[in-house]
């Protein structure tokens, strides 16, 4: 499940909180361009998107969002360094084949990278795994093992360890349980983690 589907409109509020007026924004896996159109209208951003599915690309272009039709993982190397102020990973990082490559490219082409992912360390996932003895299925991970788009499972601790090892900096982070923001014991209690990174 896409983080955005879980958050509904509340990720607009969150991302709007992070992105200042008139910045240059690239949304990876921008879908029908709803978020970018919203940022164009409310923040006057210079918006760009990447999306693979033709019908979503067409919907985005029809609403006036410039979109490049292509695969996110193969598309980033074309952009020059620091082409954007913000790059948002909507297609969540656990679905990418090479997460480290994607994150590295994001921080090369933009000053700030915004990443959200479902936390595999949430207590419900741990409990499901422990009690059933099978690949855990929860609200956020509803798939059978063989048809899951999630090919990497990561937790808040795993992600922060990667950030440290790469020498990146965490500028902001939010942890969400349902629609509520939480701060204590995020690795156990957060369903979704949202990070803003910089180099």
């Amino acid at each position: 499940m896409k983080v955005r589907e879980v958050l509904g409109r509340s990720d607009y509020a969150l991302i709007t909180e992070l992105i200042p007026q008139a910045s240059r924004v690239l949304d990876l896996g921008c879908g029908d361009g709803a978020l970018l159109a919203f940022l164009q209208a409310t923040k006057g951003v210079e918006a760009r998107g990447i999306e693979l599915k033709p019908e979503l690309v067409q919907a985005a272009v029809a609403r006036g969002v410039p979109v490049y039709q292509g695969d996110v993982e193969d598309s980033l190397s074309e952009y020059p360094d620091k082409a954007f102020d913000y790059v948002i990973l909507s297609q969540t990082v656990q679905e990418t084949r090479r997460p480290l490559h994607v994150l590295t490219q994001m921080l090369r082409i933009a000053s700030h990278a915004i990443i959200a992912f479902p936390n595999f360390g949430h207590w419900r996932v741990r409990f499901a795994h422990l009690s059933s003895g099978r690949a855990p299925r929860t609200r956020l991970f509803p798939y059978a093992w063989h048809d899951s788009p999630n090919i990497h499972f990561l937790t808040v601790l795993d992600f922060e360890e990667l950030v440290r090892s790469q020498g990146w900096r965490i500028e902001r982070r939010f942890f969400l349980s349902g629609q509520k923001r939480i701060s204590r014991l995020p690795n156990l209690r957060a369903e979704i983690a949202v990070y803003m990174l910089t180099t």
Partner: protein
Amino acid sequence: MISETQIVRFPELALDSGEKLRDLEVAYEGYGELNERRSNAILILHAFTGDAHAGGVDHEGKPGWWANMIGPGKAFDTEHYYVLCANVLGGCRGTTGPASPDPATGKPYGMSFPVITIGDMVRLQHMLVESLGIRRLLAVAGGSMGGMQALEWAVSFPDAVFASIPIATTARHSAQQIAFNEVGRQAIVGDPDFRGGDFYESSPPARGLAVARMVGHITYMSDESMREKFGRRLRGREEFSFGFDVDFEVESYLRYRGSQFVGRFDANSYLYITKAMDYFDLSSAYPSLAASLERARCRFLVISFTSDWLYPSYQSLEIVNALRSRNHDVTYCELTSNYGHDAFLVDVGEQTGILRGFLARCQREAEAAQ
């Protein structure tokens, strides 16, 4: 919407070859209203054998070649935009070309017409646009050779274009594209009626021109669209003729298209315009394609079609990636279609939504930039 073709005259055009043409005529049509600030004009650029009659219907009731895209509520919405289209330099549909009289002799140029380029075509279009008092076009748009002109406009006249829409096209002709053009040219030149291009007082090289068109038509379709349209169906018979008359539906179609073409197209124009396409390489004067596109200041919308094997998507992607490498504002869509290269002319459903959205944004941003 009855469309009238109009003629504008220009005294002189300097060509890329170093030669000059004098006393030129340009045929164009316009649809919709030019606004007071002359800021809502869209120049449509036709493909190889197209003409100025892009939209509406003419006096004989014939619809324009892109009539499904131009008009009220269509992709190029004449309620909002003034849409114009001119026959290209070297053409045979009203603009000066090899069949036009050479002012020095009063006789048709024939093969004494100088070799022209896509750049020459665009410079003449620019003269037309300026003569209409339009300082900046909201957009230039075209498919195939029209797309090459859209790219050339963006690079040659960066201040005169707000948006460029190259469709089903390339930044440079490939060996395969040149090869198909050469087959067409050889079919014409090898026809005994060709007479070194001096056939205007006798009969034109109809066989050669028809064969050239037949080859062209094959490249405009796809394996799938031909299978759907013709399959192996026989034409007006139940069994093979065991001869070389028309057996198959597809043979009949190609012969019909070939012979029909002879009546409306000049064999010399065929030679000159295909040569202009073959010479086209947007990057030729620059270290790279990206470096040439760096001159452009417009927004781009690039469209390709999945089944187009004449101008395959990889060629559009070359353009798009060169633009992305310079952080240009570029939109790219690869549309799913079975129609091959012809898709840009016939498969207009998805194109319409994309173009309307893109143009509306451009108009908004152009107004804001005023």
